[in-house]
C-alpha cells in the first residue's frame, strides 16, 4: 500500500475511508484498489445537438463572443488616438483637452496605486476576518456576522462615495493623515500637504468595498478544509494557531489568493466611489496624501463633454488600457495558481 501514501486532492493522509484518485486519474475504491473504469466513462454520452447541449454551448459561446466584441470595439474606437500618439500615450503625463495632447501615465499610476493600497489593506483584514469566521468564531455568531459583512457588499458605490466625501475624508484630514505624518513623515509617501481627499483616502474606500469579497471567499475556502485534518493535527498536540498555520492556510492558499485577485479586479474598475475621493488631479506625486486620478474616474468625468474626436478616442483608449490591465492581472493570477499552488496540492 506504499503507493497510496501519495496525498489525494482532499488532503487526507490516506487512512480515512474516502475515495481517492490515482495519479493517472483512475478511481480507487475505499480499499484503495483501482476501479474498473472512471465513473464518468460509465455513463453513455448523449448524442450531440440536443436542446440542452445547444443551450449550454450557446450561452458560453455568446458570452465569449461579447467579451471579444467588446475588446475589438474598444480597439476600433481608439484607433485615432493610437494613430496620433502611438506608444508614447503610455508614458506621457500631459492631459490637455485644449491643445488636444493626451497621455495616460498619471491615470495608470493612479489606478494601480489606489487598487494596490486597497488590496493590501483588504487582503490583510479580509483574510484575517475570514479565518476568524471559519475557525475561531462561536458557531452562533458566525452566521449573523457573515451576513453583516456580506451586507457591506450590497451597499451601492455611490453611497460609499458620498460617505467617503462627507465622513471619511474629514476623518482622514483631521486625524489619520496628520497622525501618519507626525510619526512617519520622514517617508516620502507620508509627506506633503494634507487635503483629506487623495490617493490614500481612495485606497481606504476601495479597501472597505472589497473586504466583503475577500472575507466571504476566504471563509468558504477555509471552512471547506475537512475537519479530519484539523483533528489530526490537534491529536498531535498543535495549538489553534499552529493548526491554522500548518493545516488550514496551506490548503486554503489558492482560494485565498483567488479571492484577492477577484477583489483586486473589482477595485481596478471601481468608478464612482473613487472619483469622489481621489481628488481628480492628473499628476504623479510621491505622497499618498496628494490627489490623483484613476482611469475609470477620468472616463466617467470627461466622457460626456468630450467633443473633439481625438479627445473621445483618447478616453476610449484609456478604457482599452483598463481592460488590458484587468485581463493581465487575472491572467497572471491564473498562471501563478497553476505553477505555484497546484503542485503543492498534489
Amino acid at each position, binding site marked *: 500500500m506504499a503507493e497510496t501514501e501519495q496525498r489525494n486532492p482532499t488532503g487526507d493522509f490516506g487512512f480515512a475511508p474516502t475515495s481517492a484518485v490515482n495519479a493517472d486519474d483512475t478511481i480507487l475504491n475505499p480499499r484503495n484498489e483501482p476501479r474498473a473504469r472512471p465513473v464518468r466513462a460509465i455513463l453513455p454520452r448523449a448524442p450531440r445537438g440536443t436542446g440542452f447541449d445547444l443551450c449550454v454551448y450557446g450561452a458560453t459561446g455568446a458570452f465569449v463572443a461579447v467579451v471579444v466584441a467588446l475588446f475589438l470595439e474598444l480597439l476600433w474606437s481608439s484607433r485615432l488616438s493610437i494613430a496620433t500618439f502611438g506608444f508614447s500615450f503610455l508614458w506621457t503625463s*500631459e*492631459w*490637455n*483637452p*485644449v*491643445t488636444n495632447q493626451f497621455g495616460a501615465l498619471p491615470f495608470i499610476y493612479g489606478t494601480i496605486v489606489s487598487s494596490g493600497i486597497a488590496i493590501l489593506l483588504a487582503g490583510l483584514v479580509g483574510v484575517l476576518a475570514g479565518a476568524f469566521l471559519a475557525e475561531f468564531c462561536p458557531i452562533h455568531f458566525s452566521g449573523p456576522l457573515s451576513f453583516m459583512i456580506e451586507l457591506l457588499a450590497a451597499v451601492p458605490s455611490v453611497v460609499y462615495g458620498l460617505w467617503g*466625501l*462627507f465622513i471619511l*475624508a*474629514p476623518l482622514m*484630514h483631521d486625524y489619520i493623515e496628520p497622525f501618519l505624518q507626525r510619526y512617519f513623515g520622514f517617508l516620502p509617501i507620508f509627506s506633503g*500637504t494634507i*487635503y*483629506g*481627499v487623495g490617493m490614500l483616502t481612495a485606497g481606504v474606500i476601495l479597501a472597505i468595498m472589497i473586504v466583503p469579497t475577500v472575507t466571504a471567499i476566504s471563509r468558504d475556502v477555509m471552512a471547506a478544509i475537512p475537519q479530519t485534518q484539523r483533528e489530526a493535527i490537534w491529536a498531535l498536540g498543535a495549538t489553534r494557531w499552529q493548526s491554522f498555520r500548518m493545516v488550514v492556510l496551506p490548503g486554503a492558499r489558492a482560494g485565498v489568493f483567488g479571492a484577492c485577485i477577484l477583489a483586486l479586479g473589482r477595485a481596478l474598475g471601481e468608478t464612482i466611489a473613487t*472619483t*469622489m475621493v481621489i*481628488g*481628480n*488631479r*492628473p499628476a504623479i506625486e510621491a505622497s499618498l496624501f496628494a*490627489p490623483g*486620478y484613476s482611469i475609470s*474616474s477620468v472616463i466617467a*468625468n*470627461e466622457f*460626456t*463633454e*468630450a*467633443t473633439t474626436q481625438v479627445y473621445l478616442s483618447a478616453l476610449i483608449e484609456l478604457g482599452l488600457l483598463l481592460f488590458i490591465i484587468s485581463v493581465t492581472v487575472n491572467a497572471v493570477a491564473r498562471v501563478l495558481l497553476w505553477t505555484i499552488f497546484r503542485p503543492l496540492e498534489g
Partner: protein
Amino acid sequence: MSRSSFSHNSRKVIGLIGVVLLATAASVAFASTQLTGAGSTFDYPFFSKAFYEYSQLHSDVTVNYQSIGSGGGIQQFIAQTVDFGASDVPMDADELKLAKEPVLQVPVTLGGEAIGYNLPGVAKGLRMTRQLIADIFLGKVTKWNAPELVKLNPGVKLPDLPITVVHRSDGSGTTYIFTDFLSHVSLEWKRKVGTGKSVQWPVGLGGKGNEGVAGQVRQSAGAIGYIELAYVLENEMTYALVHNRDGKYLYPSIETVAAAAATKPEVSSTDFSIVDAKGGDSYPISGYSWIMIYRKPSDPVRAQLTRATLEWLVTKGQAVAKTVDYVPLPANVQRNALRIIAEIQG
C-alpha cells in the same frame, strides 16, 4: 388540480391582468406628444421646472429633457436622436459642419459664477480683483494672508492657511465660462491654459459637478472654487465680491448678471461671450446657455410644437427662472431669441 395550485393559478391571472391594466394606463398617459431634448447639466433645474409648468398649461405636449452634459447633448443632436440640444457653449464651426443641416441656436437662460470660499472666521464678501483670481488659479498666490489679499481687505483677519483651489473634474460649460473669464483678464492664463470645457489646471483638486466643488470647498478650510450662482444661493455659501471692469466690487446676483447680459443685446452663437463686461453693475463672470434646433426639422408637427415650447420658454418661462435662482433673459435678448425661433420652418 389541487386547491393550492388553483388559487396559485388564479393569483397569477390576477397579477397578469394588473400588469396589463398598468401598461394600458401608462400608455394612455403618454397620449400627448413627447418632445425630447438633451444636454447641459447647468440648465437642468431650470428646464425641469419650466417644462413641467408648460405641460400643465398645454396638455398636448410633454418635454423629456436628459441632462447628460453639453457635449453629450450636442452629439445626440447631431445624431438626430433628440428634438433639441442644450449646451452652455454654442456649437462651433466644426460641430455645425457635422450637423449637416442648418442649425438655429437660441439663448435660453443666464448664469453667473460665484467665487466660493471657506475661511474660518471670515464672512461673505472678501474682495478680490480679477487679476488676483487668475493668480490664485494659476498657483501664483498660495496663502490666504498673501500681501495682495491683505491689501484689498484691510479690515479682515486673514488666517495663515494655504489656498486649496477646487475646480471641476468633469467637462462643463461652467468651466468654459470661468476659463473664458480668466483668459480675458490674464494673458498668462490665456497662454498657459486657455479656454475650454475641460482644461489642464495648473493647481487644485477636482470635484464632480457643482455639488462636488461646493462640497469640497465646504469640507476644506482654506478652499476656494467657482460655483454656479443658483447653487451658491440655495446653499447659503460664502462667496467673494469681485472687482469688475468699471471698478466696482459686486456680488453675483440676478441683477448684476442680467446687467452684464444687457451690455450685449446682439449676442449670437458666434459672439456669445459676456465675461468681463463693461458697465458699473455688470458681474464679470457670466454666461448664456443655449438650445439648438434644426431650421427645418423632419417632422412638421413636432417642429410646430417645438417652436411654441421655445417661444414660451424665452418669454413667459423666464418667470420660472427667478423661482429657481436662475437669471431671466433681458428684454432685448428675449426679442432676439424670438426672432431666431421664428425661423423654424415646419
